[in-house]
Each structure stands twice: as C-alpha cells, then as structure tokens.
C-alpha cells in the first residue's frame, strides 16, 4: 500500500539527529514490547509480513506521530485480536475473561537462547525456475497495490539490472494476508541514482533494492 511507512525519497522530515551514547532502550515499556515479539508471534501465530502489514494500516497520521515500539504494540494488539487470541474487551480491562485453555505452551525462558540465536529464515528450500539472471535489465512493475508490498514506491516504473539472485523466499504480498507463501526468487537489483532521482543525483551513485520475481518485467 502507498502508506506513510514507504518513506524513501520523501522531503520535509528535517535532518537526521543521532543521539550520542544512545541507550538500547529509552523506556521500560519498550523493553517489554521487544521481549514480547517472540512469544506473541508464536501465540498468534503470525509471520513478520502480517506484522508489518498491520503497522502499515495503522493510518498515516498515527504512523508518523508514534514511535517504533508503539508501531510494534499496535501490531501485537491488532493481530492478537484478529487471530482470536484475545478480545478487545480483555485488552481494555487488562485481564483474561476466559479460563486458561489447552493452547500451545508458551515460549519459555530456557528456549530463548536457542530461538534468538537461530531465528527463522524466510528462505524456502524449493527448486523454482528464476525469471531473471544476473545482468538482465528489468523494469519494476508500476503497480500500486492496496495490500502489503515490499516494492518501494520510489522504485516503481524504474529500470534496473539484476545484480544477484538471492534465492527463493516467501513472497510478502501474499504471506501478509494469509494467502500463502507464493515462493519465488528474490534478487538484488541495482539502480543508477540518476534513474531514480534525476540528473541532480551523482552519476557515480546507485541504490540496491531486493525485489521478487512478481515485481519485475524483463526490459
């Protein structure tokens, strides 16, 4: 969707303001939100694409005026309700209204070292014929879907070259909406900065974007 999250190339946000000696967290509640990611996504369950899609739908004004961990919190609440794990009323009351069920066991502290050091790759071990190969010139399809997509607006309708085939990955556009993994190749695609931003950009510079088969057409 063409949401406020798709920031590449926008103006008006001012300078970058790095904080010196920034702590890992600024507030205690941010820690809880970070720590809840693994157990909540297991309880849903939900994948990272579903998570991102909920953040993107929180509304442009809301998205831009809230912090990173508030985005996460919004996605947790939305997905926990959508997946039937909790009700809105329970979240409002801060207590469960139904007895503890026979649900799957929660992530335990003893599982954390293994989970954090292994993660869960979106790579899919499946032989699928790639549509493109390194060196191919490709156009990014000029699509403006209302659903979740990882094709940034600034790359659409632009000419790039396939730098490298990264292999087969889950396709976010379908996975975000419970429509399956649609496994397909994902490539590193190189764009001249001038193709993206015009002649003001340096002819030396380039932007590399990871894009899936379905976003591209052979030029």
């Amino acid at each position: 969707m063409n949401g406020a999250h798709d920031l590449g190339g926008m103006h008006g946000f001012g300078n970058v303001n790095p904080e010196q000696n920034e702590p890992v967290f600024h507030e205690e509640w941010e820690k809880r939100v970070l720590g809840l990611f693994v157990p909540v996504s297991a309880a849903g369950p939900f994948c990272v694409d579903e998570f991102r899609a909920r953040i993107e739908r929180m509304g442009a004004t809301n998205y831009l005026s809230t912090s990173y961990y508030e985005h996460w919190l919004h996605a947790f609440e939305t997905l926990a309700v959508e997946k039937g794990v909790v009700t809105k009323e329970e979240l409002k009351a801060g207590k469960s209204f139904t007895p503890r069920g026979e649900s799957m066991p929660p992530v335990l502290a003893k599982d954390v070292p293994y989970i954090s050091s292994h993660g869960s790759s979106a790579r899919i071990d499946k032989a699928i014929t790639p549509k493109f190969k390194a060196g191919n010139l490709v156009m990014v399809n000029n699509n403006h879907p209302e659903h979740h997509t990882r094709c940034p607006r600034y790359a659409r309708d632009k000419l790039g070259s396939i730098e490298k085939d990264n292999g087969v990955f889950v396709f976010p556009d379908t996975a975000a909406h419970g429509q399956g993994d649609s496994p397909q190749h994902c490539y590193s695609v190189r764009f001249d900065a001038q193709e993206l931003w015009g002649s003001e950009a340096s002819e030396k510079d380039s932007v590399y974007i990871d894009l899936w088969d379905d976003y591209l057409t052979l030029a």
Partner: protein
Amino acid sequence: MSDHDHNHDHANSRPLTDVELRVKALEQVLTEKGLVDPSAVDALIETYETKVGPHNGAQVVARAWTDPEYKKRLLINGTEAIAELGYSGIQGEDMVVVENTSNIHNVLVCTLCSCYPWPTLGLPPVWYKSAPYRSRVVSQPREVLKEFGVELDKNTEVRVWDSTAELRYMVLPERPQGTELLSENELSSLVTRDSMIGVEVLKTAESQGVSE
C-alpha cells in the same frame, strides 16, 4: 493490590501513560491465558540489552581485516562466515556483507520499516528508524553522510542498500591506516556500530587514542 496501585509507576510515583497501560494489559492478558511466560520476556530483553550488540559485528570485521581467507568467505557467504563466530539468529538469518574500499562507500537503510542485522549490530538506534534517515539516505546519501561527518570525494561511488526483503546487510568498513601492528582484539575495539551501517569512516588508531 487495587487497580489504583496497578496503574502507577512506583519508582517515579506518577500515573502510567496510555502506552504503558496498553503494554501492561497485553502482557497480563496473555500471561493469564498461559500464552506468555514473563520470564521468557525478561530473557529476551536481557539478550538484546547485554549480549547482542555491535561488539559482535566488530569481531567479524576484525577477523576479516586480519584473515584474508575469512574475509573471502565473509563476502561470498556472509551468513555462514558470521555463523563461524557464533553471531547468528533473529534478523540475521540471511546475511550479506558489503565491503567499503578506497573508491566504494556502502551505506544501509530500510526505507519501508527498520530492518537491521540484529545478531551483529544489536537493535537499531532511533535515528536509523526515523523518517529523516529513511526518507533521505536513498535520494541524498552524500548530504546525509555529511551530517554524520563523512565527506566523500565526488569520485567515490556510493552504494545505498535498501533492505526491502529478508536479507540483512552489514558494511565491512575499510581498515584504518596505521593499524598494521594491532592485534585482532585491539582492532575490534576500533570498529564502531556506525561504521558497520556505513555512516562513519574509521579514523586511524592514533587519532582514536589506541596505543600500539
């Protein structure tokens, strides 16, 4: 305790904010349902607050600077080479390492959210997640780098990596001159988080005050 007591931060004796109440409610409801074990939440916090951070990535960089064979493996298959040092996991499942040289400067961003290589760099700083950085570094990388104190020669090629998929990038910064005699350990202490994002160029050991 009454509800009243629940809704105050005792350390600061102020009412909890709306966000704090929401976080508390979510964790409480899920815990009561047996879906969240708060000690697992504590363990995850501890992992990312104390164990996982840019010191991990710095070890990878120092190894690459001192072991040409390792560097070769790192640039060909970042995931496997980084796993050799034990820094794998969430948000680093598929790693790509890009090398800065005397005429190529790489810099990382995620314009769509804030993807970042957690196992090697830790959790991202606020500026990396902010709209100013995400909006501008793709279109005006040289200006943004200038704000970080990096002035690039006009002949240097700038490559911006927008992490739109599940690959996570990390910059292998150039080894500063004058560090030939330093050990791998000493070298790793020179490597900063920002140099591995690509918004800093490392200075010589001397100007960083490291004795040889």
